[in-house]
């Protein structure tokens, strides 16, 4: 066939390959979409099922753990799950406030520390700077779990275990914050600072009036990323408040639900709790998507 066409004219052969390519392209499209849609289902369904299940009654959820609809005969939809989150030692309202408080203080503090420190690293030359910077890089890779035991001792000696301080202080100092701010600040044109310096502005004035306003996009990116990180932090809080259940944050409180109800697992409550823990970050994510992508590109994630 193809030989004959090749002999006839170049144009026909070209058209045929074009048509062939189109058919191939269609197959590729169908395969691509099927993979993506299947993957999207796998990614979304667990959230949908657990969101629905958190409003099922306890008998309904144990009878139909896979159903995406409510069984009215069993009393669904119901608020059993949510109600189970505020009784005896389970105090989700308090834990929510703790999460908001700790996240606000830690992220606020970290942004301040990081903008001062990042500016020093980006623009200043001071004695020992190189050594300090290498020290930062050196300790950055140390896993949290390795520091857990000695940090526990430090807090014990400072007598702050089972207080807010024990959650806040160990989360406050992160080398990656400074590296990110350093990067952002290095991108700010130097000329403006130089002319400010010539006009007689002090370092601090230059920093506050010129550098900080220009670093706002960077600060926002860091703000969003660190809010998510601190909100979801588990291990550090777990170790900080072992004997103060009222001080737990949402993830630690959520993890403690399993053992609190005796033998049967209180799925409706656990899934309601998971929903409450996830929701604020989900909203943040949908509103500020842009910053997540920027943050990822600037290497601010996984630091």
């Amino acid at each position, binding site marked *: 066939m193809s030989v004959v066409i090749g002999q006839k004219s170049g144009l026909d052969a070209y058209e045929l390959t074009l048509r062939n390519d189109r058919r191939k392209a269609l197959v590729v499209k169908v395969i691509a979409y099927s993979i993506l849609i299947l993957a999207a289902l796998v990614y979304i369904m667990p959230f949908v099922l657990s969101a629905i299940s958190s409003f099922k009654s306890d008998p309904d959820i144990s009878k139909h753990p896979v159903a995406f609809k409510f069984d009215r005969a069993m009393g669904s939809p119901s608020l059993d799950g949510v109600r189970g989150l505020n009784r005896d030692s389970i105090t989700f309202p308090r834990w929510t406030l703790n999460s908001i408080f700790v996240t606000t203080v830690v992220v606020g503090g970290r942004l301040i520390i990081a903008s001062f420190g990042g500016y020093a690293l980006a623009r200043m030359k001071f004695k020992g700077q190189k050594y300090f910077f290498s020290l930062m890089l050196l300790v950055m890779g140390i896993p949290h779990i390795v520091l857990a035991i000695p940090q526990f001792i430090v807090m014990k000696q400072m007598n702050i275990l089972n207080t807010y301080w024990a959650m806040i202080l160990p989360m406050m100092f992160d080398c990656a914050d400074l590296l990110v701010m350093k990067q952002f600040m290095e991108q700010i044109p130097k000329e403006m600072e130089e002319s400010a310096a010539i006009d007689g502005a002090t370092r601090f004035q230059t920093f506050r009036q010129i550098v900080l306003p220009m670093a706002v996009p960077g600060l926002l990116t860091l703000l969003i990323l660190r809010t998510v990180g601190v909100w*979801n932090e588990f291990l550090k809080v777990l170790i900080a408040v072992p004997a103060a259940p009222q001080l737990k944050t949402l993830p630690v409180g959520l993890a403690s639900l399993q053992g609190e109800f005796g033998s049967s697992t209180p799925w409706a409550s656990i899934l309601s709790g998971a929903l409450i823990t996830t929701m604020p970050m989900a909203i943040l994510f949908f509103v500020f998507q842009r910053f997540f992508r920027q943050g990822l590109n600037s290497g601010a994630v996984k630091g």
Partner: protein
Amino acid sequence: MSAVSSPMSRVGQRRQKKVKGPALFEHDDRTGWMFISPFAIGLVVFIIVPIFMALWVSMTDWSGISPPLKATNVGLKNYQTLLVDDGLRRSDFALSIKNNFYYVIFVVPIQTMLAFVLAVIVHQKFLKGKSFFRLAFFFPSITSSIAVSLIFKFIFQIDGLANAVFPGKPVNWFGNSRGLLHNFLGVFGVNKAPSWLQGRFVGLSLWDWLSGPSVAMSAIMACVIWTTSGTLMLIFLGGLQNIPVELDEASILDGASGWKRMWLITFPMVRPQLFLVLVLGLIGTWQVFDQVYAMSFGGPDKSTITPAFWIYYQSFRNGSAGLGAALAVILCAIISVFTYIQRRLVSDKGVEG
């Protein structure tokens, strides 16, 4: 930028800088340290000092409860207990390393491949609803690891969604400590250690070393792969977007097929991202803790204990913080290897980590 290129103007610039220099950098020694001191103090108190304390605790018999400064020094005894002395503590340590090892060699390649495939598809020009897919895949990364773990535990119940979707006998995921490899060999009738696998290595028989991840661990692996792939996909996407359009177009004009372009252009161009994803994966997977804590708490039969979990358990639940610290130092050594590789990559290839 390009306007300033002649040697003359460069000289001029340098002279300008010299003139401005003193005004800008006069008090930098003092101001520099002042600006960085809030961080420096925290770094010393909560990271540097603890690092040395970890080394010190690992050489004591501290229980984790008694006053830490009164603990007795026992030298290298904790390390000996973990690595040399025959006993339950050594075999538990070996078990945690084995469990985590299988976890790593399953999770890292699978999440990397999945992330790459998703990124390549999401990157296609013809695709509609790109941002929807990107959102859907990335969303789990911003949710609490504990919330996601519990959702997966719900799904992997014996009558849960996972068993409903997959055909075959329902699996009791979190009640099954048997290794996947042992299960696989069981299909061929091999249910016990053949004689040549009865030797022992660091407290476990060779047959036990070759168990593969337990069924319970597989459920945890599924959860982690599902959570992380989205972030890794975005890293790959960043790399794909950097490929110049001309390169792709030129190769199409040259008649390169889709596969050829994948091998000859896409792969080499995203190599930095590939290394980054692999190394980040290796560092992260050797520290798995939250998921184990929330989903299985090390069980069943210790088949999901990992070094990170075992450090926590020994130190804060079992009154053996000295032993936990020794384990922490060993884990730190393992992870340092990968961190070192990552650093080398970052400095060689200019990839952000």
